[in-house]
């Protein structure tokens, strides 16, 4: 079975097999972004450089979606977390492996790759998600 990323150039795996998010950094003001973009949201400089982003971050807030839009084909409920990575970019994705009773705001998380769904040929479509960092993470 083949694993296909949901979109190109969002993530990769490092030498140790761990998920790494790929983003942009502004050479003028240093702001970092995910996903990658062409010009800086802060200072509008063009020609941002590619960069690997921090693998860990903190949960800013979350919710558990129990009524999804008609276009969502996956399982319900699912937990969405809003994460601020240690090097600045903020993004949302699913949190996996946590219990509904877990207190989440302020918790440390790490980026992982996980199945989003299967495509028509049975391949796995893979996307970046988050897991609670073991033992509170590296901070």
């Amino acid at each position, binding site marked *: 079975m083949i694993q296909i990323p949901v979109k190109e150039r969002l993530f990769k795996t490092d030498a140790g097999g761990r998920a790494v998010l790929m983003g942009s950094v502004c050479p003028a003001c240093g702001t970092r972004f995910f996903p990658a973009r062409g010009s800086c949201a802060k200072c509008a400089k063009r020609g941002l450089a590619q960069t690997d982003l921090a693998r860990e971050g903190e949960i800013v807030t979350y919710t558990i979606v129990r009524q999804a*839009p008609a*276009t969502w084909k996956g399982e319900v409920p699912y937990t969405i977390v809003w994460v601020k990575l240690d090097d600045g970019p903020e993004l949302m994705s699913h949190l996996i492996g946590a219990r509904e009773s877990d207190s989440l705001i302020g918790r440390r998380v790490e980026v992982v790759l996980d199945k989003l769904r299967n495509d028509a040929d049975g391949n796995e479509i893979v996307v970046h998600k988050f897991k609670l960092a073991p033992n509170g993470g590296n901070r």
Partner: protein
Amino acid sequence: MRNVTIIGAGMHKCGRYPDKSYVDLALPACLDALDDAGVPWKDVQSAYASHISQGVSAGQAIMGQIGLTGIPIYNVENACCAGSTAVNLAFHAIASGQYDVALLVGFEKMKKGVIGGIFDEMSLEENLGLNVMPALYAMLANSHMHHYGLTQEQIAKVAVKNHKNGALNPHAHIRKEVTVEEVLASRMIADPITLLQCCPTSDGAAALVLCAEEVGGRYTSKRKVFIRGSSVVSELCGRENDVTTRASAKAYEMAGIGPKDVDLAEVHDAFAVGEILHCEHLGFCPEGEGGRWVDEGRTEITGEIAVNPSGGLQSRGHPLGMTGVAQVCEAVWQLRGEAGARQVADARVALTHTQGAGGVCSVHILAV
């Protein structure tokens, strides 16, 4: 810049109208607003039509049913702020002297079900199931509950208040009161937001006639309602949560007033918790105190500041292109003393606020 007044307001009651087209909703609202203003169509010099997804040239289709006079007609989309944006555009056009008289109409026919955000089908957000508007407000609710101790009961009380106000509003979609228990027991959409904390999906239309102050006397002797402040803002990098703070600051500065001067406010309560968060960011109460203000009844029609005396989006409904215009209609009726059972005593200054997907916010300040 000249003074701009609103001299006419009209509305088509919100509800579900599967057999009505958007023209069937918008046209009567326009005619009612023109009649209210005493303005004949030949004197209307420009028209604005705010909607999100009603189709190409919707404004022309509506205005063409009134008269074909060749005037400029502008279609305006800005997510949930579309109607407010139309008011902002018409206001500036008149204030700058481009036109003397303008008509604007906001309208929408809504699909059922959970509403998404702005993201297209191919986007990462759509793929991840992040495209869920209640989920965004649910996340803000959870943060506020964590940091300030906001409770589910306080949020539910907003839904209760606005349903109570809506029951007094002949144009509201939902005119049935609810209890805190019913709100909290209704189906969970995205924790902690339950179904009865979400505005209904409704069809509707609202229209306004704006004119330069100096020409209004030709048409009407009703109390003049001035647009004193008008703002539209988008996101600022790194400060995505403060669109309401910035939009209201601009409007307050333009009007030369502060939050304490506001008698009533129509605030974006698509989700009940939104009203609490927005009241804090609009400066009506200190940050973190919004829940306590609801507990103390300070946002009731008879309270310190009447918030959503119309019943808000919670009970009037939220036909996307209509809402910003409907809020200003309510402000006009309140400031003229025409709000009937919902009348806020001594209403002299009103504020309207909408906030939309993609980081849009618009605030208006109206006064007599």
